[in-house]
């Protein structure tokens, strides 16, 4: 799951994935902006056919957070 997530991040945002780990912080380490986050959220919604609520987005601090969320809701 973790690998899938990292790859999706890489392809959606068109960035390198080799240094991304589960501990990577989206904002602090990857320098992601709101637009990037929304982009990611929509990408995840499409791939896993889920609806991600706005208020959940603030919990996506690290890659691990996303993995946990998906594991719980997919």
């Amino acid at each position, binding site marked *: 799951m973790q690998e899938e997530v990292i790859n999706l991040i890489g392809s959606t945002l068109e960035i390198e994935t080799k240094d991304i780990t589960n501990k990577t912080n989206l904002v602090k380490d990857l320098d992601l902006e*709101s637009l990037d986050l929304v982009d990611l959220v929509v990408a995840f919604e499409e791939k896993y056919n889920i609806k991600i609520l706005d208020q959940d987005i603030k919990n996506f601090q690290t890659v691990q957070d996303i993995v946990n969320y998906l594991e719980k809701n997919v």
Partner: protein
Amino acid sequence: MYKLFIKKTKDSKSFLESILNKYHIKNDICYNEYGKPYIKGNPIYFNISHSKEYTVIAISDQEIGVDIEHLTYKKKLLNKIANEEEIKAIKNEHDWTKLWVKKESYVKYLGMGLSYGLKNVDTINNHNFRVKKYKKYYICVYKEK
């Protein structure tokens, strides 16, 4: 009232400090848990935004939100961030970017970030948005009267 400062930089902290430098206010800047700057005990408000190479800082005597975004057209995101009426009006990248910066400037004004839900931001009936074009970017300031 507000004033916008725009600079080709990614270091917003230094940028802000350089603006305040002249008046020896540098050392009084504090940052809250979200990294949002403020001056301890003082009623002046800042908001910062960056996109690609540019950073914009808005300074005001009241709550304010600002967002800058490079020209973009992400059709895919429209359903997530906009309502039907707004979607109908988006014909090109200019419309899309203007819509985005309006929405963002509002949630930044609130200080709530994305958890507010961009779809909840009404850009049709709310007239407090001030959008301006800057090179290949759009900037929006949100401020209530």
